[in-house]
């Protein structure tokens, strides 16, 4: 999931490289350490408890990371590790999801809301013992995120409507100002992007080190990097990586979070992510006690409920709380564009009524019943169900009424009529629909192998399409292969998901026409159509006001436009929050759609411990 309100959306995967030489750690608790008041009444953490250091936490993922470089990452199989190794100026509280100081200990906002002064925590060190200063902050924004030589989606959520970026400037070693050219409501969440170590990474940046070629940074901190070279401010650092086996992380001796008793966090010595073949294997390993926490599916609930008491675990099920994020079918309107191939298919995909027909083919109720045991809700909006900006509400933060929901009912008749209307009919009587030139309409539908829910969604869609003579060939592929297909624009139709959060602008890297994850229509970056121009304008307008109610109305139009007219992504269903953990893990009860001990936003792993 996206680091909630903080950063860009990342491609969602339900989970899923030598010894590191660690420095000694602090001689004493830094004066500016961040204190987590576990168990203290009146605080967000009153239902948690102080823990003890020690032990190794085991979780699982169904995909290996692609790299260790957060800046250039797009996928949670990578970011889940980056968020354990890195921290930003601000972050989300794992209990309340409210923004709170992180590497910055406080900030001041000018009366005109155009200048934010961040006061950094003093005396902190990177995991290799080097001091953390304002230079790292300025480096991260000016030399990485804003650097056109660096491939990063983060720029998409930092760019202001006037195409400028927040100006980050050093005042002194522990003070940084961020100056805006115009009002930018989500600045605090956007500026929370992870801070990178200048002393470790400047050597790879051409503008700082002309001896290296342009673009060198983009391949830095790859999987072939010695983990000892990775440097961070987060609770854990990668110790070792074995492809298809595990990623082992070890406590960062210079992590700056402490509990109120003065114990340095994280509590765990190590955090191991086992790579498994499928979610089902994860489930069996959790049952066996080989994993300590697991994001489960609705279909796992009966399996675990019968063993919950015997095996001393907790199974969380909240049918009323849908997860953040979106699940969808992406229809690649640029398929074959670069190669001059797939002309028929590309033209079809670019036809709105085809995408509408696909929407009518999504049998959401069957998905909810068969794949989620009823623990899911139909999804139609690009904005998360839990977001106060979700257009299923009547006003900002109001209850979900779905009054204005865009509904494409499941209807084979309507889908067939739409296809008939655009001339996609069976011309040779073989039962399959054909293009005007008589060739069969046939397309490949991919999702990531091992994700049984997405495989189920794909099979249901392919089945319903076949009922009206539309041939979809379902082919599951490895997650990272799937991501490569997305970025190379070679995937025809893909079932996948995106992380989500409260602030819709954090999806600007997906939904703006020039976004780095606008993978269903990358060519829009150069030639946006009128609809895409409208969506870009709505995104700009919504961040240009400090009035949440006004922003809500703008985002409502944005959501309805995407769902009803653009249809680049055809949404499926949104699962309810379900999670399981061993009762030997303390503070795992913090689990919620905001943060979980095995989740990929790194918010709670430093708080958990073995009882």
């Amino acid at each position, binding site marked *: 999931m996206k680091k909630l309100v903080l950063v860009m959306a990342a491609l969602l995967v339900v989970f899923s490289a030598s010894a590191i030489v660690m420095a000694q750690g602090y001689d004493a608790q830094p004066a500016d350490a961040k204190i987590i008041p576990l168990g203290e009444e009146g605080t967000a953490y009153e239902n948690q408890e102080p823990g003890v250091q020690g032990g190794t936490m085991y979780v699982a993922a169904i995909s290996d990371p692609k790299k260790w470089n957060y800046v250039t990452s797009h996928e949670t199989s990578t970011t889940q590790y980056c968020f354990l190794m890195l921290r930003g100026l601000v972050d989300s509280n794992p*209990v*309340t*999801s409210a923004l709170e100081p992180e590497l910055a200990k406080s900030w001041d906002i000018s009366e005109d809301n155009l200048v934010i002064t961040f006061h950094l925590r003093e005396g902190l060190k990177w995991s290799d013992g080097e001091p953390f200063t304002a230079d790292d902050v300025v480096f991260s924004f000016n030399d990485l995120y804003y650097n056109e030589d660096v491939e990063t989606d983060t720029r998409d959520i930092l760019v202001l409507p006037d195409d400028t970026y927040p100006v980050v400037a050093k005042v002194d070693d522990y003070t940084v100002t961020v100056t805006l050219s115009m009002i930018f409501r989500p600045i605090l969440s956007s500026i929370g992007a992870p801070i990178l170590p200048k002393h470790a990474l400047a050597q790879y940046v051409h503008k700082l080190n002309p001896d290296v070629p342009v673009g060198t940074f983009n391949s830095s901190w790859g999987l072939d990097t010695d983990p000892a070279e990775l440097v961070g401010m987060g609770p854990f650092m990668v110790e070792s990586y074995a492809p298809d086996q595990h990623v082992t992380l070890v406590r960062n001796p210079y992590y700056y979070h402490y509990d109120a008793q003065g114990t340095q966090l994280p509590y765990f010595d190590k955090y191991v992510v086992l790579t498994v*073949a*499928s979610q*089902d*294997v994860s489930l*069996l*390993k959790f049952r*066996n006690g*080989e994993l300590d926490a697991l994001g489960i599916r609705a*279909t796992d*609930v*009966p*399996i*675990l*409920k*019968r063993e*919950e*008491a*015997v095996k*001393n*675990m*907790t*199974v*969380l*099920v*909240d*049918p*009323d*709380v*849908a997860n*953040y994020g979106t699940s969808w079918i992406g229809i690649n309107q640029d398929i074959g564009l670069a190669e001059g191939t797939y002309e028929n298919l590309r033209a079809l995909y670019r036809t709105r009524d085809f995408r509408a027909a696909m929407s009518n083919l999504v049998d959401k109720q069957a998905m909810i019943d*068969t*794949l989620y*045991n*009823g623990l899911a809700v139909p999804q139609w909006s690009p904005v998360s*169900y*839990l977001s*106060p900006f979700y257009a299923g509400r009547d006003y900002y*933060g109001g*209850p*979900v009424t779905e009054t204005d929901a865009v509904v494409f009912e499941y209807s084979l008749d309507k889908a067939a009529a739409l296809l008939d209307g655009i001339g996609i009919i069976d011309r040779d009587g073989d039962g399959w629909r054909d293009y005007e030139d008589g060739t069969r309409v046939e397309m490949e539908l991919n999702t990531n192998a091992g994700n*049984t829910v997405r495989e*189920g969604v794909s099979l249901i869609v392919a089945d319903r399409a076949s009922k009206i003579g539309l041939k979809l060939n379902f082919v599951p592929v490895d997650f990272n292969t799937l991501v490569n297909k997305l970025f190379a624009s070679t995937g025809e139709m893909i079932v996948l998901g995106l992380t989500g959060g409260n602030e819709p602008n954090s999806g600007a890297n997906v939904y703006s026409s020039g976004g780095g994850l606008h993978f269903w229509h990358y060519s829009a970056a150069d030639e946006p159509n009128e609809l895409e121009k409208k969506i870009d304008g709505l995104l700009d307008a919504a961040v240009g006001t400090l009035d949440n109610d006004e922003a809500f109305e703008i985002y409502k139009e944005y959501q309805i436009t995407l769902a009803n007219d653009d249809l680049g992504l055809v949404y499926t269903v949104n699962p309810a*929050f379900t*999670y399981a953990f061993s*009762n030997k893990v303390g503070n795992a*009860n913090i*689990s*919620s*759609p*905001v943060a979980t001990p095995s989740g990929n936003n790194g918010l709670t792993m430093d708080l958990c411990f073995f009882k």
Partner: protein
Amino acid sequence: MKLTGLRALVVVTCVVALFSIVAVASLETIVSDELIPEISAAAGIALAGSYADTMTEAELEALAVNGRTIGLRTAASEALAIQYRAKTEEEIMVILKGTADPMIRAAAVEPALIYLISVTSEAEDFSLTDYLKDIAINGETHEMKLAAAKAYYFMMRGSLKAEDLEVQAVTNDSDELAYAAGEILSGFYLSFNPKTQAELEELAINGESVGMRVAGSTALATLLINSDLTTLDFETTLLSIAGTKSAEYRAAYKVALAVRYGS
């Protein structure tokens, strides 16, 4: 719909800590007494972790076969199940299909699941569930069939409802399939299709098939564990129902007692 997304329906089942956990030394005494087989077996289940840590595979295999009491044999078999997780697919299948004592083969059933649900084939028309079902019907041994049946229902769980399973727990293509259907069904009785304790007791005692009695028994065990009943309560009950009711009903108390003993 809650807006915050922060509150979750937490079903905490960690009640074990409320009760005293019996020391290993005491369990060794209990497990050596077979007067009430379920009490002996409960102590055996509670001892399994300790045995797995301290005994060799050969020692455990010998104990699983020749242990003087059902408790000792259960402890050894359960401990083997833990050690067998480290075995390869081929090694597990050799045990399951072989002629070893049933207590040894039983230890291989759960470790086999990860392999069975991961079977692939080059054959274009290969269906994993069909493959598993075939083994569940025609497997070489009861334990092989049972492992396949459990794997089959594990894979099928998303497409079956409680009412489907209630049929399949009674009438099925093999006893093992009916048993496995009942196991999965118990989870529905604890989540999507809840039943009262009285209903589960009735089912565990008088269910019309082993599968239905297993469904009732497995779900009942959870309610017992989550109850205020003490170790002594469970021991007393097992004493009073010794040899009566049904094996599945007694098994619910055995499992609950094992948890109280500290399994």
